[in-house]
């Protein structure tokens, strides 16, 4: 877990602090997304956690230990760090790039080799084709995967990610996000994730911290923030389609009415799977102009989803 206590960063020559008396608690094993317009202090905050920037005042604790008591290089070796520009060493192969931190820890060669191979496969890259290549020979999406692999090389419990998927095209980004979320379910890292994209924040975050002008405006789960934006700024930042955005947080099976064996498949025109997101289900309802969808689990019919169910769900959550 990471605790930020009354952190202030004041750059000399600037009247307003970049980060102003910020306190934040990031629990173990969760993704905490720092989001806000550019210049709001989110990246500065992230970079203070691994001492790339030192705060003017305040204290940061990792697992109860003040980070100023650790040597900065030692601290950084133990924290995964991914930046938007990736920063792969252009004169080193992919395998050598991933091996940087294990080499700093002086792991034996065969252990490094094994770990590098494991990571390349874990990132969904072709082992034979990738490991001996140089960064310039890879696509943006592949480089970003290598960047993430490199940050996870020594399996650090904490990862800092500064717009890690910001430089790739939208399709590759969605793909990387999905894969990363799936991976996170297994590895359960404590992740601080910076983005300026509220949709990415809603998708990736267990918790979202919304920043404005160096201050924390609102902190909570995506659902809390979409349901109860604390002020005008947050409301504007998450957009007027917040109700539709909120639908993204749920899947068909969470909203559907279960049906018994008496219902037959042939009573439905359109079917979706239980894992379909609500916006997709809603879109299908409108597209085929039907009143309800059949929900399938594999091949078996298990529920029914109508427009009314979705509406009821939205209002129920809104009222909570």
């Amino acid at each position: 877990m990471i605790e930020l206590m009354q952190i202030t960063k004041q750059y000399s020559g600037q009247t307003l602090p970049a980060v102003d008396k910020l306190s934040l608690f990031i629990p173990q094993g969760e993704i905490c997304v720092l989001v806000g317009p550019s210049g709001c202090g989110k990246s500065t905050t992230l970079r203070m956690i691994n001492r790339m920037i030192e705060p003017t005042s305040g204290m940061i604790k990792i697992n109860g230990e003040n980070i100023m008591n650790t040597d900065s290089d030692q601290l950084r070796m133990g924290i995964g760090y991914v930046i938007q520009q990736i920063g792969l060493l252009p004169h080193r192969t992919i395998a050598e790039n991933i091996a940087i931190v294990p080499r700093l820890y002086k792991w034996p060669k065969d252990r490094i080799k094994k770990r590098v191979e494991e990571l390349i496969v874990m990132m969904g890259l072709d082992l034979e084709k990738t490991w001996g290549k140089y960064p310039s020979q890879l696509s943006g999406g592949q480089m970003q995967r290598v960047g993430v692999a490199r940050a996870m090389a020594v399996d650090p419990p904490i990862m800092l990610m500064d717009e890690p998927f910001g430089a790739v095209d939208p399709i590759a980004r969605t793909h990387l996000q999905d894969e990363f979320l799936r991976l996170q379910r297994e590895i359960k890292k404590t992740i601080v994730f910076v983005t300026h994209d509220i949709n990415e924040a809603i998708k990736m975050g267990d918790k979202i911290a919304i920043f404005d002008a160096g201050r924390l405006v609102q902190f909570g789960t995506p659902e809390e923030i979409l349901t109860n934006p604390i002020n005008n700024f947050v409301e504007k930042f998450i957009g007027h389609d917040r109700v539709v955005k909120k639908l993204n947080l749920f899947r068909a099976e969470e909203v559907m009415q279960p049906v018994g064996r008496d219902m037959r498949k042939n009573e439905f025109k359109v079917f979706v799977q239980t894992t379909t997101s609500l916006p997709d289900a809603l879109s299908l309802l409108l597209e085929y102009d039907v009143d309800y969808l059949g929900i399938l689990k594999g091949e078996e019919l298990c529920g029914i989803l109508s427009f009314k169910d979705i509406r009821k769900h939205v209002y129920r959550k809104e009222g909570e």
Partner: protein
Amino acid sequence: MTWENFRFALFEKAPGALFEHSLIVLITITLAILISVPLGVFLTRPKFKSFGLVTLNLLNILQAIPGLAIIALALPILGLGMKPAVLALLFQSLLPIVKNTIAGLLGVSSDVKEAASGMGMSRRKILLEVEIPLALPIILSGIRTATVYVVSMGTLAALIGAGGLGNLIMGGLSLFRPEYLIVGAGLGAIMAIFLDRVLGHIEYRITPPGM
């Protein structure tokens, strides 16, 4: 012009002169690298960046002083021979190497340095494993410029008894033997071209394959 004179110049005089000349070039360039590269590294460290402009201007002035003038100035202090010659040539060869070292190091992408530092690489490690390897082709190109320069300016060293190919040229001029002159100047030109090619090849070879 006689064939006899030509042969004498080429086979009797030239080998010794060529050796001396090579020695002067080798010593000068070695010293120049030993001074310039650390100086360039030093001037790109954040703490000392402010000295950069002053130092570069100073080196510019040093390079602007004609080699002949430095040799004349060094003569009363260091006497005759190789020492004042090397000193004069050294002054002239520092600038291109320092300049290229600075350019090369500043040219290393800040993203790469940021990522390296964010992974916990120490400043020393970043310098040795990231910055210098990436800047090396540019540093070497500075060394190449300086080497060619020293080879050609090195002929002046003969004026203060340092020997080298300049001996043949000066001798040819004073004895009215164009054969000596041709051999001296020709070998100087060949040496400059040869070293330029060799260093160019090394530069190509050490350029990291990914770049």
